[in-house]
């Protein structure tokens, strides 16, 4: 096997430079690469374009990069829950491209599948379609209009997995899977942080979400906070 493990997060991000485009995994604060984001903040890398479903909250997730004004452009589907984001946007300090969530995921996936563009009906007839090529297809008897959407080109994908082996194979936990797989396969260079890094052979080869071939670097993250955005519970019957 090819050993993809690096010593630590600093080695992992050594060649991420100002102005680069990053895919960042996670949905809300679930399954985000906490260590990688913290390291980007610490290193002060600037003018980043981030492709991520959300922009974190004010003081966690990508919100930390926003706080330090390290993000030039945000490509996301939903950016509520973040006052600093709104402030930067309304002040013109931040470029934002809002993309339907399925289109966002599929444009990442398309990169990993070597497909330069895909067709989706999402956004047809809305401002999302402005300036875009549309085309009608009939599928199973239903004629519909689709938008041509291009695969994302990201210099790096930063993802978080539950377990990984040094060959780069990744396994995710529950809904922390979310965008992480599509981004892991879609990045030009993919860096994975995992809660538990194991030796090749310890993961069941039948049940690996992202094959190691897509992962360039892997390391075991530290001190996962795993913040909960909306703690909803029910009472126990007594």
């Amino acid at each position, binding site marked *: 096997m090819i050993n993809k493990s690096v010593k630590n997060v600093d080695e992992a991000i050594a060649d991420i430079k100002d102005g680069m485009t990053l895919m960042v995994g996670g949905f809300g604060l*679930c399954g985000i690469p906490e260590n990688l984001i913290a390291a980007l903040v610490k290193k002060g890398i600037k003018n980043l374009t981030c492709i991520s479903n959300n922009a974190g909250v004010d003081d966690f997730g990508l919100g930390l990069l926003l706080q330090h004004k390290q993000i030039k452009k945000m490509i996301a*589907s939903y950016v509520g829950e973040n006052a600093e984001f709104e402030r930067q946007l309304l002040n013109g300090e931040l470029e934002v491209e809002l993309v339907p969530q*399925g289109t966002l*995921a599929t444009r990442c996936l398309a990169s990993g599948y070597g497909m330069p563009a895909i067709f989706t009906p999402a956004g*047809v007839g809305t401002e999302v379609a402005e300036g875009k090529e549309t085309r009608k297809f009939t599928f199973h008897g239903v004629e519909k209009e689709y938008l041509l959407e291009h695969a994302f080109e990201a210099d790096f994908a930063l993802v978080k997995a539950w377990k990984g082996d040094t060959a780069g194979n990744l396994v995710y936990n529950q*809904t922390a899977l979310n965008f992480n*797989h599509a981004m892991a396969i879609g990045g030009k260079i993919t860096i994975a942080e995992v809660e538990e890094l194991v030796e090749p052979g310890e993961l069941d080869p039948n049940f690996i979400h992202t094959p190691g071939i897509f992962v360039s670097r892997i390391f075991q993250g530290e001190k996962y906070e795993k913040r909960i955005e909306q703690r909803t519970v029910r*009472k126990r019957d007594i």
Partner: protein
Amino acid sequence: MLDKNGIAKRIAKEVKDGYYVNLGIGIPTLVANFIPKGINVVLQSENGLLGMGPFPFEGEEDPDLINAGKQTITTLPGSVFFDSALSFGMIRARKVNLTILGAMEVAENGDIANWKIPGKMVKGMGGAMDLVASAENIIVAMQHVNKAGESKLLPKCTLPLTGIKCVKKIVTELAVLDILPQGGFKLLERAPGVSIDQIKNATAGKLIIEGNIPEMEL
């Protein structure tokens, strides 16, 4: 007139045995509470789960287990996790039978607006554009009028669109209405105690009233 739970309860009657259902944030989420015992449905959460269960018991919240509204949830026997791309794959492939979501405006041709108020709100469309563009069966759960007292059932949407010609049915605190293929809100049922005139006054778009309009049964 219905409260939020009333709207959810009425919509629950539209949920058929064997349906896969996607519930949006707000009133749609409440629909899950009113699905009768004998009806087997599977709730899809577009962040990557089929078979969404109830909220966890206090102390059992798992940060790795949330729904599309970022709420902590649970799974059920037979649940399955998958990645976001496959999640919207199954949505586009029309494997999800019913989508229930909120709206700011619905037009008489089935257009819907629910993601943006220019100059005021820029939260984003999330998965709504994908859902409304693909779903065969879309029910909108919303108030008939907005906070300013203006009708949300319009001849034409004024806000940026989420999707075009896609809404099939609307359930509000006042009424149940179908959107006809040729356009127009066809009144099907009145909420308990609500008069036809109340509905007429609250509907700016073309309202079609034919024959006797029954009160809804809940």
